[in-house]
């Protein structure tokens, strides 16, 4: 509860700041619109030549693309700015301040900074998903719930992955390259993970679960994810969250010299 209030406060502070720079805000939104419409265009070009792509028709593909921008938007809304700041804190030694606060350091560091404008990316992603859904029209309450659960799991998976990656900053300080690998792999989430050849599919669904984080919510909303799959996703996400948090704690202990 207290953490939710803090989160709202972080968000509000950032919002105030971004609202001061209206031109920037407008330009960022224009960029988001351009990027998403061109991506939709790319999907339309593909479907100019086919009606179905590995069992995904145009509606399902748009839902998937919408989910992709929801997940990526979430990443850029809070995770990317926060984790970038975190690496900067490690480099400058200002991480100390977060460790001295009577609150979870992991929370204070990893959910601290927002790029509020990225809500636009999530919103537009939602629009694309809804348009796609309109073509499938199988949305019952069951699918809606499954979708919401799967999407949250997707967020958690992405968070866990970034947390685990950024933990390396405690030992290596400069890990920008490592993070950049992640962001370029995320790009692969724009298509269903099963179109990729073996090695890439395995990478995308296990080591870098961006494929899972995007594909499964899209399957859930179009009624193609069964209860068992959903259960596996939920358990997997929780496990990923716990494991990455433990790993973060190990990194923190090494930072404070507990295990040196």
């Amino acid at each position, binding site marked *: 509860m*207290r953490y939710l*209030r*803090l989160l709202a*406060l*972080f968000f509000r*502070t950032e919002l*105030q*700041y971004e609202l001061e720079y209206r031109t920037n805000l407008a330009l960022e939104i224009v960029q988001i619109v351009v990027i998403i419409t061109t991506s939709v265009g790319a999907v339309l070009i593909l479907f100019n030549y086919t009606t179905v792509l590995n069992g995904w028709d145009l509606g399902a593909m748009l839902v998937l693309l919408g989910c992709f921008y929801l997940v990526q938007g979430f990443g850029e809304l809070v995770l990317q700015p926060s984790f970038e700041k975190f690496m900067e804190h490690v480099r*400058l*030694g*200002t991480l*100390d*301040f977060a*460790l*001295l*606060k*009577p*609150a979870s350091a992991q929370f*204070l560091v990893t959910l601290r900074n927002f790029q509020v404008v990225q809500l636009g990316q999530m919103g537009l992603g939602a629009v694309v998903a809804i348009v796609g859904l309109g073509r499938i029209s199988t949305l019952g309450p069951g699918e809606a719930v499954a979708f919401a659960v799967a999407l949250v799991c997707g967020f958690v998976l992405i968070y866990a992955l970034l947390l685990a990656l950024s933990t390396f900053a405690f030992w290596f300080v400069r890990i920008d390259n490592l993070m950049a690998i992640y962001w370029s792999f995320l790009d692969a989430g724009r298509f269903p993970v099963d179109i990729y050849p073996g090695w890439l599919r395995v990478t995308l669904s296990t080591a870098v679960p961006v494929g899972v984080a995007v594909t499964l919510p899209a399957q859930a909303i179009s009624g193609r994810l069964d209860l068992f799959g959903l259960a596996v996703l939920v358990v997997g996400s929780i496990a990923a969250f716990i494991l990455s948090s433990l790993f973060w704690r190990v990194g923190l*202990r090494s930072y*404070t*010299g*507990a295990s*040196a």
Partner: protein
Amino acid sequence: MGEPIIDVRDLRKTFRVTERQEGLAATLRSFVRRQRRDVNAVAGITFRIEAGEVVGFLGPNGAGKTTTLKVLSGLLYPTAGEAHVLGFVPWRRENAYLQQMTLLMGNRTQLVWDIPAADSFRVLQEIYGVPDESFRRTVGELTELLELQDLVHKPVRNLSLGERMKVEFAAGLIQSPRVAFLDEPTIGLDVSMQSRIRRFVAEYNRRTGATILLTSHYMDDVVALCRRVIVIHHGHLLYDGPLADLAERMAPYKIITATLRDGAAATIDLAAYGTVTGRDEGRVTLKVDRQGAPERAARLVNELGENLADISVEDPPIEEVIDRVFSEERVGTAT
């Protein structure tokens, strides 16, 4: 006196550093077999600080001051030894402890660059769970003491270094801590801003009774604020006691300044009375053995008679004492 606020016993902190040469080949080699070396940053120090004290923590760069402060504030686990602050073991980082202490670092900022400090204060209030009532009171007091009125509403990046440090102080004290660790709080500030910060620290200590342990490179800070100092060097405790006695203990000599009448300076050789360390027109400074100082002064007065215009006997300046301690000239070599 009750329990001490800070109680440190035989505290040690050893860092294991990896030594690595430049170049790819060396990097690869060190990947296989690392060259490691232990550095004793803090090599067993013991001290206690009572409630309300302002203690200066002195030592040259690398003496272990910052490491000690980091251990006491809970940022570092010590290698051995015990420490209690407010009855807590700092490195357990219990919320109840963190709630009551602060660590201010002169060369690092916790304020967010692009937003006004007032917004950062609000965030800190929420993090520390300070009730609105006392938050308003604290901010009001700090604003008055530090003269922050115009500063807290500007984005931090638009503040000067000194202004930023004042705001930084306020940010670090939002939770009204009972213990404050100040690491080089005046570093890089101009003289007048230094003295402003000094006055603030003294006043804050007087008003709130907070216990303060501070490190500084500027002896003026220490002289103005601390009656007691703790001196460490190479991780060892060299001195712990009143600032006033530091010179007596650490510098076995005194400074005699003799001012000679016009013309006399050229003809009289003062080297017989002590080591001449300075000569400026008629003013000559002499370094003399501490015990022998009164006798030398008396001889000077007697023997120079008319030629002596003025004479004073003083402890050496505190910077010099400290400098001497750190350059490890051992006691008893001066005449």
